[in-house]
Structure formats: C-alpha cells, structure tokens
C-alpha cells in the first residue's frame, strides 16, 4: 500500500484513501467539438505509460476529496513529489530523480550469457 503525500492535507496518507486517476497534464481541448478523430483518440486513449518518471493524477477521495498531481517512478513506485491540480508540470532536479530511482537488483555487473561451448568446457 503506497503512502501518498496529499498536497492539500499536507500529510502522508495511506493509498486506500485515494483513487488513482490516470496520466496527468492531459488537458481537455478547449475546442473539443472541432478536433479530428485522430486528435480525439490522442486526447482520450493514447497514453505515455512511461517506464520511469510518471506524472499522474490522484484523488484523495476518502480524505479532502481533491484531485492533485504526483510524480512517481513507475519502476520503484517511489514518489518524487505531489502538487496541487492546476500547477504546472514541475522541473525535476537530478537529486529528486536519483532518490526515486530503483536500485539494480542484480548483485553483480551484467555479464553476457556464456555460449554453450564455453559452458560445456567449464564442466
């Protein structure tokens, strides 16, 4: 269960108080009635689905009720920050990005798989 900082309650709260609301910073076109089918598809269906830093929306449904935005690393699930709805997409610092980065699971540096002949020889 994630722990999410609600920018309105100014406190970390447990995930079950929140509802995920998908990718952030997708504005509804002001002239929506006039856009093309392709533009509508882009707006309504196409998503970044980034592996890494994601900008996403949450609603503190069972708390203050507010929608807000969050920046999270989708590999480590660590939050970098949350901010109020309507605030611009934040610039992230190196440290912020690093702090949320996942650590490599592998105990040693990657080595290529040995060829069968090499494995055979080693026996």
């Amino acid at each position: 269960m994630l722990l999410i900082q609600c920018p309105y309650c100014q406190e970390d709260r447990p995930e079950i108080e929140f509802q995920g609301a998908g990718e952030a910073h997708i504005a509804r076109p002001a002239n929506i009635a006039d856009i093309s089918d392709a533009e509508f598809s882009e707006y309504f269906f196409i998503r970044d689905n980034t592996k890494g830093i994601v900008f996403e929306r949450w609603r503190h449904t069972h708390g203050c009720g507010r929608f807000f935005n969050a920046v999270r690393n989708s590999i480590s699930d660590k939050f970098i920050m949350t901010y109020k709805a309507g605030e611009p997409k934040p610039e992230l610092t190196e440290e912020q990005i690093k702090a949320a980065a996942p650590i490599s699971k592998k105990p040693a540096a990657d080595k290529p798989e040995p060829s069968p002949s090499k494995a055979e020889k080693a026996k």
Partner: protein
Amino acid sequence: MSISSASAGANRIKNRGRLNRARTISFTWDGKSLNAYDGDTLASALLANGIHLTGRSFKYHRPRGILSAGPEEPNAIVDIARDTARRQPNVRATVQEVFDGMQANSQNRFPALIFDVGAVNDFFGPFIPAGFYYKTFMWPASFWKHVYEPFIRRAAGLGTAPTEADPDTYANRYAHCDVLVAGGGPAGIAAALAAARKGKSVILCDENADFGGHLRADIHAQIDGQPAMDWVASAVAELRSLDNATVLNRTTAFGYYTANMVALAERVTDHIADPDPELPRERLWQVRAGTVLIATGAIERHLVFHGNDRPAVMLASAAQMFANHFGVSIGKRVGVYTACDSAWQAAFDLHEAGSPIALIVDTRSEVPSQLLAKANDLGIAVKPGHKVTATSGRLRISSMTVEAENGHGKEKTPIDALIVSGGWTPSVHLFSQSRGRLKFDADNGRFLPDEVAENCICIGGCNGAMTLADALDDAANATGSKPANCEETGSMVGYQIGTSNGKTDSAFDKSFIDFQNDVTAKDIRLAVREGMLSIEHVKRYTTTGMATDQGKMSNMHGLAIAATELGREIPDIGLTTFRAPYTPVTFGTIINHAKGKLFDVTRTTPIHSWAQEHGAVFEDVGNWKRTWYFPKPGEDMQAAVNRECAATRNAAGIFDASTLGKIEVVGPDAVKFMELMYTNPWQKLAVGRCRYGIMLREDGFIYDDGVVGRLAEDRFHVTTTTGGAPRVLNHMEDYLQTEFPDWKVWLTSTSEQWAVIAVQGPKAREIIEPFVEDIDLDDMPHMSIREGRFCGVRTRLMRVSFTGELGFEINVPANYGRSVWEKIWERGEPLGLTPYGTEAMHVLRAEKGFIIVGQDTDGTVTPDDANLSWAIGKKKTDFVGIRGLKRIDLVAEGRRQLVGLKTLDPREVLEEGAQIVEDPHQPIPMKMIGFVTSSYWSENCGRSIALALIENGRAQMGEKLHVPMANGAIAVEVCETVFIDPDGSKLNG
C-alpha cells in the same frame, strides 16, 4: 547428566532446558496419546517421546523426520486439530506449540506413516526425474483428463484441506511506529531496547513463543555479565513496561511492502488449550514504520549427500535447541557432519547432555585448534577433511558411511542420529522483499544485504554477523548506542554449499537439496543439461525451493550446484526472487474482519424495515438491498409482479426509490456546469421544473441518466442511477476540479439525506393530497419540483413518473422516511395503494419504453442508439461527449438501435440476453444482429413485451426476426418501444 524418565517423554534430559516441568500436557499423535511440557513444540514433544519419523515426502513418499527447530522446517509438516472444524493442514511441527487436547496427525501417507503405499514412488524414483511429466502422459490424448491427471493430482498435495467453514475469528491492526524491529534475537532485542530508551516508538516482534533467537539454544553466552537468556528476559520485561514499545511474540514479519509497510502475523490462540472465544485466532498487523530494523538472523543449512534425508538426520543447531531449550535428547549415539564451527559446539553440548557423540566429521581439513582440543578433552573422535557419502536405516538412520576427501578410508559408523551443518544462510528474505540489493560474500558462501531501497537497516545474523559480539555491535550502530558487553563460545564460521557426496551420477542418487519437494542434486544437473540456464528455470523445472518452506535451507545448495554445472559464478546466476510471505500465512488472517456480515457493506434504506415486515423479497443492486417484489402468501414472483403492476396502473403503487443517487449542484455557475455535464440544455429550465438528463462519457457513450430539478437559479437537485451515484459524483468533481477549477459551483451528495417515496398511479394525487402543505398541487405540472412540507416534514416534492402514470416522488429527510411512508400507506391502502418492488418498476417502465442504463445500454450505446437524440441540446457547442459522439463508427450505418419486440405467440416471454438473427436456419456461427435487453410478461398489455438492440432497428419496424433458442427459434416482430399509452395521456391523470 542423564536422561530422565519424566512423564513427558523418555528422552528428557535431567536439569537441562528452560521448560516448566511442573505440569504435563496431553496430546495425540496419529491417535496415540502422548505427554509434553508447557512450552514444548510438537517437534520437541515428539522427540522427547522418541519419535523422529513425522511425515512422508511430497513426490517419493520417503520417510522423513524432524530436521530443524524452526520455521524453515521442510519435513515435519503435520495436521493439527482442535476439533473437526478447527483443523489445520501443513503445520510445521517445529513451530506449533503443544496444548492440552491437541490432535496432531501425520500427512501424505496411506494407510499409515510407517507403511505408506505411496512409497512405491521411491522405487520408481529413477523413472521420474525432474520434469518427467512434461515428457510423457501425452498419448492417448484423452487419457490426460481421465487417467494421468487424476493420478498425478492424487499423488501430489501434502495435507488435506479443511472441509468445514472456519469458526474462528481474526483481527487486524494498522500501526505506526518510529522503529519496527523484525526479529527478537540478541541484535533485535538490543536495538529495540536502545531505540525505546531514546523515546522512539518501537514495535519488536519475533516469530517464536520466546525471545532470544539462537540464544535459546545457547547455555554458555553471557551478556552484560549475566547469562544471555537472563539478559533477554530483563530486556524484554523492560520493553514491555514502556508505553512507547509494543512487544509481540509468536509474531512473524512476513511481508515487506512499498513505503516501509511491513505485515506481521500474530498467532494469538493457537497455543492455548481453551482460548477465550472472543479472542481472534490470529491478528494481522500492518505496520508503517519510520525505520525497519531487520534482525531476522540466519538459518543453518544441511549438507548434500546420499541418504541425507533419513529420519534423525537433523540440523546441528536444532539438536542444540532441543537439548538446551527444550531439554530433549535426540539420540544415544550421535554422528556429526559439518562444515561449520557452530556444529562442534552443538556436539559438545549434546555430548555433555547425555547424547554421546560417535564421531565428528568435518568437510574442512583445517578446523580451529580449540575445537579439536575440546573434542579431545571430551573423548570425541573427529575426522577433519572427511565426508559422509551414504547412510542407512529405513525409518531412522542407523549408520553413516564416511570417507576421506580423496575417497580413501571408507568406514561405516553406527549411529542413531546425525547432526549436520553446512553453515549459515543469512535470512535476507525481508530485506530482499524490500527490493534492497544483495551482494555475494564469496569468502563465506552467502548473500548479504547491500544497498537499501527502503528505510531499513539489517543487523545481526541476517547482516552477516557470525558472533554474538558482531550482532550486538550491529544493533548499537543502528541505534547510535553503546553495544552490550558479551562473552560467548560460538561462531558461525565455515560453510559448504553445493557439493554433493555419494552416488552423484547414479539414477538412484538420494542426495537431497530440497527435502519437501524431493529435489536431488542430480535433478538440478539434469535441468541444466536440458538447457535451463536461468536459476528461475532451474527452480521451476525441478521445483526446488517451491515447497512450503520456500527453500529456506535449500536455495543456496541449488544455486551452487547449478552454478557449477553451468560453469559460472554464483553471483552471475543470482538468487531467485524472495516473495512474500516469509512463512505461509492463513487466508483468515489476511482477510481478518472481512467475513460474514463484514464481508461487504450492506446498504439499506430507511424504509427497509417496513418492507421486511411486509414480506418483501430483496435483490442486490451494488451494495444496496432493494425490494424486488412483495409476494402475498401463496404468490410466486410472477403473480406478485403482475398484481403490483396492475394495481399501479389501476389505482396506485408505492415504491421506495431512496437508493437513487442525489447530488446538489449549487453556485452561480451551476447551470453552466450542468450544460457541460449533461447533453441536455439547461439554461431555459425554469425554477421549479424538472428535466430528464443524459450524461455521457467523453467517448460519447451513455454513462448515466436521471431527472434533474431546478430549485433556484443557482441550485439543482440532480438524481442519478442507484449504482452510478459514486462514479457520477467523481466524474463531475473531476471536470470541476481539474478542467474548470474557477467555476463557482459546488457538489454535495445528498443521496442519503432524502428518503424517496414514489407514489404512482391514477389515485396518486388523491392519496398524497392531504399531507401536502405549502405547495399548490394544482400548480404542479408533470416534471416539476416544489419545496414545502409533507406530513409536517420538510419535503422536496417532485411530480415525475417512471411508470407513465400520474406520479409523485416525495423526498423527506431520511430519518422520517419510514414514518411518512406509513402515513401514506395508512391512507392509501383502502384506496387500493399497493407497494411494489424493482421488478414491477422494471415492467412498468418497459411498458413505456423507458431505458434502464446498464440493462438497455451497456457502455457501447449512444443516445441516438437509445432513441434519445432529442435529449441532446442541438445548439450546444460543448458538453462531455460531444466529440466522441461524432466518431466514424458512432455515426455509421448499421448501429444497433433500441426497438420493441413482440413475440408472435403473445404468451411467450423471451429470455433477456437472447440473440436475434434474420435467418434462424443459417449454419453456426450465425450472424447475430442484436439481442434482447429487457423482457417481461406485461399483465397490463396481456402479453409479453421486450426491448432489444437491433442493427438498423428503427428501419425494421414490423419486420419478422428470430430468436434462436437451444430448442428452436422464436419468431418476433419489431415494434415501437412504447407498449402502453403512447400519447402520454395518463401522465396528466
């Protein structure tokens, strides 16, 4: 010292052990009555009674004994029962504490533990190596289902699942603390105490009944000048006395989840003979910790050699625990086979406690001199640089065969127990679950915690400490305190992984890596030979590490053998992933309170109790219980619904509509907001009037509908479907907060503020008139709303109709709902007023062609499909869904449109969901052109009626189509959706 003949087992060691021997406990083992002491585990009690053989292995059904003294146990997996309903399969005998009246039984054997017909698999072992089932049982194909699979299934599985509902209760606790200490050995206790003394809020948990970890097996160590276990007792007592510390024994930290959430399972009553029935059996703790101190210790490994699985082969530390903590002797002539110093001390302790050591075999040619000297002092024979290559004994080990590393000097030594140690594996499970990185310590053949991913610190054995002093230092470093002083004798130096001795190349090799799943060294080699190059493949192909012990003892061996076979280093192959839970956790614990009536919320209306008293049958709609119909004695559902429908059309019906969602939309921008959220135009809706609104999603499909009343220029009373209420409000808030945050309008759910009583039918007005105050009913046209009083209570009175009859919906504050309902009922009953439920409501509205969102629409239906184009404001330039509606496929020819259907035989009622075709004689697969969305017997029409979505339906009025059923097609005619009063004259009563 000598073995006493105490009543709780013949193998009790006099003056040894920490159990209270004042009272004996009686339990049964495979039906035989045995005695134990308070504090015994089933394992220690069985051993005390001379029983080593406790189970049969999974695949070969080989006799197996108690191997460990802790949660890593792979062999002694038993069935524990209190009574027939309180029975638990697959319990580790080394963890289960004995209580009076406990019934323990061995598993996976037939007919009996000592004679098990499944053991024939052992003979066939050479035919069924790892993965054999992938290679056979393919012909003839039909045999898989009827012969092979049933056979495999019967042979597999360990215990028997319970067959009765679980009568026990379980509990949950969310907790927060500054420091969670997982593991109550010396490091954990010292750290918890240091943190608590600094004023931190601390939770300390340990999976065992007693704190102390490996110190429980130790009788020599001293901490702060006192025997280590005395230090443990006083430290735990101090922690228990502090308000800022919570001390939990019998509590396993089993899962490390994101953001320092650690799950603990506390066993509350499983050790008690007669527990308080109010107490939960187990309690789940979901702890959110500032820092997690992982003090989970280390687990000793076995060694891999031919015949290493016979009963009475046991981990050295386990034998030491049984002797020193439980006061139980495991044998009278004990062999020792080790690669690690710690087993020597175990051997000395056993020797001194009356279990003479026959021989110590150490794989290492160089053993610390003080150990050799001590052995010499005690007169114990030792063979450094030797290995055990075979054992004998059917139901208990009777000898071991020892030879030198070079194969010389082969010699057989008679023994009745063999203690083994392949060194220690740090318990990095929790750390690894936290997604921390491990590093390989090649010098000691083990993985250790490296970089952390969460805010945690590993201390003690799991961090690689090999001595008590190291462990206490870790604790001090982690808490910024001074380490406790200690004196000790033990060390965990020395290891062996992966090597296997004996018939390693033979098909008959029985050098077990994973005891429970019967995985041998040769199975691992076979997997590699067959191209399983990843350790995950090896694991899955051989099933090593996948048994109930999750490979706590076996993983390192499997990994090392695979690495050797692959010609690669261990860290290059990597460990398999550690997954929660650390030890198996009862489903009941995980769900805790959420069973029975707490499984899910049951929502009822203020009028529910009246309906119950009047014989209502209820249906589930989301979380709500809604009245389905009100059968009179002797009536079935159809009869009741027919009567309810007829009465409503002929006199009046009363219906509880309280579950309808209601949202109050308030503010100067309210009308602007309504324009956006609904397809309809709202600007011109006069105060006091209502309108039926359609809400779309942005993709243009119908999302919800409902009647909206305008209470004031800046205030709307919006109704939604019952199930749609929460999502509609969320949908509205989403647009309001994120797209139009500057609009001055607010939304408040009033679904439960108002009880809603619908009175519908020609006599509706007559019935309600006397109750109405401050409202002029004559000035209330169809689709209007007024505020005033009803029965003296504040009301929002709506003149609306979902039946096509003259009708009112009376909103009163919920606490008055039942009383007002009763007042109307009192007056209306003599006038023919009849209560009706949702089924009659469905029929009545279908007779009028009104849709139900979710039944006549399914998330792929546009307003036009549902004949609701009229509800779209033609001049509007924006509303949610305006663009989605115009997409190619949504305006294409051939969409399914809502129409009415009449069966040619008026008595035939179609099945809802039945499919419609043009030609019922076409071959399968048929071209389906639509389906029946609603279908009823209409008493008012005197025939069946149906609604359907049909391709180009509106253009097919009068056409004959077919509804193919399993037993023949039903002919239907397409018709308008309105079956009664098409010009709406009844509305105006």
